[in-house]
């Protein structure tokens, strides 16, 4: 298969995407069933050609086709096959192709699982997805062609950046894109609802599982990225508030708000305009995130090489998609506040407050990320905005959320009774206070750690009390519907995450030490003995490998092998050794030899103990699981007939109210 075939496949996919984005819209407008029926076959055809193009690029990597510039730039003869596949999305052009592929995966899934929806609606949704696809395919074909030739063909390629040669990196971008792109479904549903001008809320029910699943993927992608940064970058940190990380975090935050707002709109009919707006925001921020990295606007550790031409194209595309959708919102958003009334103490109010905090947090991250640019624009000088800024404001904004969280499941729609809430307050409060006192003794007054224990117990006990209550009060089989189980899992994830963040942040110990063989350094209650350095090699690297034996109270706990690898093309990469544990990670990184003559064989090492750090990703994974479990709720997939009559009746009733 030749690369030109891949390019041809992309052009054919673009033509089909054009058909998919125009004809069904026309059909929906003219009520022409034949035109609307184009949507599904066009989407399938497009997906086939995009998949073909992707397969051709994968095959070019697998077969070392260095006549393709992109392959030559990102792989070489020594690179193992699994990293050659990952190299497909290791740089800009291929990762855009992956993005479009995943957009097609979601589109096909939607085309398959939308049989119960009205035809006009599906036509509009698929057309909107087609428009997005057109934008991306044009971007690839005109500015970022992965199939460009390199002639004459070099005998060997350059190396994939060693920091990308890690299992986390093979996994992180596809999952992250599943999340980013998944929000396109909620986006398309909202646009279709605005275009249709229908005030009914049934579309929200159809959109919910897609949103929850997309958010689950995004959580997973962020966890994978964070894990990769921790394990691979070797700084022992798990989140840097780097522009690229922020770019993925903003849609996640808005996604949290969206999931909850959708629940309100679906069940009570309230907050319709807000739910639509959040759907637009979530996907717009996903687009912004995808593009900020590539536009050359922001500089960052893992930004892609930039090109002003790309930046300009991106800006035009954002103007069309985001600007267009917000214009549509301004013109067509539901004008009358519909839905059922609710009191101050009600689940609606609590969700509204939570929504506010998450939206403001996303706005804060956006402001902090773009502020250096604003500084240039307003001639304020070059300014850095970093972890101290985000690390101060984000917890402050999340404090009300954590305080409200245990009440969530107990609060009832419309109006809640105070005694039940008071009971939760007392029980979770006492548990949190008791654990805080115990923690205060154990950690010797480290305020952050105490706050971590208290907040986690507060949230966790709240969730568990509710689980118990359901268990006691409900008959088997009706205790935990999937939607609720997902919510409980995700909320429990918050508790686990709080433990991880606050304990590891406050109790971690880091030391840079100079060690000769036999030397013992004590860090955080563990004794690290350095046993010297040996040579070792892997498929495409050679390494100096240190050996460190860790013991606690005389008992050996772990033997660790941090490496300093030299890849082909002289790229050096340190690979840390991590001994994982539930209550602590031990982490060793090998630095430079300290005496060049190797008389005593001394090296610089960095030693860490990181209590409870794993709970951070554990919490993230629980949140992910929560998203998926909720999405699987059977209630979302009720047949159209019963559903349609019910919602139609409801909307008639509401329009009268």
């Amino acid at each position, binding site marked *: 298969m030749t690369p030109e075939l891949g390019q041809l496949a992309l052009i054919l996919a673009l033509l089909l995407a054009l058909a998919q984005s125009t004809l069904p819209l026309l059909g929906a407008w003219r009520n022409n069933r034949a035109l609307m029926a184009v949507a599904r076959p066009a989407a399938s055809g497009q997906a086939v050609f995009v998949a073909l193009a992707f397969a051709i690029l994968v095959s070019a990597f697998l077969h070392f086709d260095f006549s393709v510039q992109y392959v030559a730039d990102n792989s070489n003869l020594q690179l193992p096959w699994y990293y050659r596949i990952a190299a497909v999305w290791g740089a800009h052009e291929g990762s855009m192709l992956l993005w479009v592929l995943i957009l097609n995966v979601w589109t096909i899934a939607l085309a398959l699982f939308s049989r119960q929806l009205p035809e006009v609606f599906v036509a509009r949704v698929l057309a909107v997805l087609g428009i997005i696809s057109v934008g991306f395919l044009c971007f690839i074909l005109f500015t970022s062609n992965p199939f460009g030739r390199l002639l004459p063909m070099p005998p060997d390629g350059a190396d994939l950046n060693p920091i990308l040669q890690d299992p986390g990196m093979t996994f992180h971008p596809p999952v992250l894109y599943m999340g980013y792109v998944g929000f396109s479904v909620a986006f398309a549903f909202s646009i279709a609802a605005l275009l249709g001008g229908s005030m009914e809320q049934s579309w929200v029910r159809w959109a919910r599982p897609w949103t929850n699943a997309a958010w689950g993927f995004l959580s997973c992608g962020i966890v994978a990225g964070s894990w990769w940064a921790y394990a691979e970058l070797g700084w022992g940190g798990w989140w840097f508030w780097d522009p690229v990380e922020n770019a993925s975090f903003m849609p996640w935050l808005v996604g949290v708000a969206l999931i909850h707002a959708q629940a309100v709109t679906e069940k009570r009919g309230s907050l319709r*305009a807000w739910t639509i*707006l959040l759907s*637009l*925001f979530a996907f*717009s921020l996903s687009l912004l995130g995808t593009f900020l990295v590539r*536009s*050359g*606007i*922001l*500089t960052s550790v893992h930004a892609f090489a*930039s090109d*002003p031409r790309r*930046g*300009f194209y991106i*800006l035009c595309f*954002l*103007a069309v998609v*985001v*600007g267009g959708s*917000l*214009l549509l*919102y*301004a013109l067509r*958003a539901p004008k009358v506040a519909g839905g059922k009334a609710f009191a101050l103490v009600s689940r609606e109010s609590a969700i509204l407050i939570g929504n506010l905090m998450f939206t403001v947090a996303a706005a804060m991250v956006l402001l902090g990320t*773009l502020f250096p*640019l*604003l500084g*240039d*624009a307003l001639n304020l*000088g*070059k300014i850095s905005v970093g972890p101290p800024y985000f690390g101060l404001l984000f917890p402050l904004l999340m404090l009300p959320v954590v305080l409200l969280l245990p009440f969530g499941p107990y609060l009832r729609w419309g109006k809640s009774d105070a005694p039940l809430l008071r009971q939760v307050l007392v029980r979770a409060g006492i548990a949190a206070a008791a654990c805080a006192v115990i923690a205060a003794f154990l950690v010797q007054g480290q305020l952050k750690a105490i706050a971590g224990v208290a907040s986690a117990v507060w949230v966790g006990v709240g969730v568990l009390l509710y689980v118990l209550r359901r268990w006691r009060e409900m008959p088997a089989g009706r205790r935990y519907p999937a939607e609720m189980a997902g919510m409980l899992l995700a909320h429990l994830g918050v508790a686990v995450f709080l433990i991880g963040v606050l304990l590891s942040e406050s109790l971690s110990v880091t030391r840079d030490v100079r060690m000769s063989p036999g030397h013992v350094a004590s860090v955080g209650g563990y004794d690290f003995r350095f046993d010297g350095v040996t040579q070792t090699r892997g498929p495409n690297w050679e390494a100096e490998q240190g050996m460190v034996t860790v013991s606690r109270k005389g008992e050996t706990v772990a033997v660790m092998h941090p490496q300093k690898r030299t890849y082909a093309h002289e790229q050096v990469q340190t690979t840390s050794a991590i001994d994982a544990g539930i209550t602590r990670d031990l982490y060793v990184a090998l630095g430079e030899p300290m005496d060049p003559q190797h008389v005593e064989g001394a090296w610089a090492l960095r030693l860490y103990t990181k209590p409870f750090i794993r709970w951070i990703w554990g919490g993230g994974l629980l949140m992910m699981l929560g998203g998926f479990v909720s999405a699987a709720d059977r209630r979302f997939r009720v047949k159209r007939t019963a559903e349609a009559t019910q919602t139609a009746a409801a909307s008639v009733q509401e329009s009268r109210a």
Partner: protein
Amino acid sequence: MSRLLPLLGFVLLATLLGFGIWWNSAHDPTAVPSPLINKPAPAYALPKLDDPAQTVTKEAMLGKPYLVNVFASWCFACGEEHPVLMAETQGLGIPVVGYDYKDDPNDAKAWLAKHGNPYSLVIADESGHTAIDFGVYGAPETFLIDGKGVIRYKRIGPLTPDVIAQQLKPAIAALQKEAP
């Protein structure tokens, strides 16, 4: 009206992003303007590269404007800049002092012997301590210092014929005008 707010917000954001694209294609995004411009240059006392026994100080250089060009033999971009310096230093009308930054003196001497020496004088800062006072964070960088020892202009990154013609020469001309 409130329905228009998100759109207005986006228009502001898009304007900012558009500005960013323009700004970053017109400016080097990694260049950090020095706060030392129009401030007295830091005091320094550095050995000459070819004769370490002799020390050059700020006081000794007072009286006439001069250029300080930070370079190093290990610095890739300096290699790009070097031919420009070879061609243009004569036409500047002021002495150009080479500032050898964090470099092995022997490497630097060999490098200059190979590529030519455009400098009227070369000082060596092997440790890079003095460079911190100058706010140097990479090579090449170029400072224009006036007769009173004040930094008047700084270039971060390689000098190019365009930069010399459009920025450096006017700055030098302005200096010579104010000090007859």
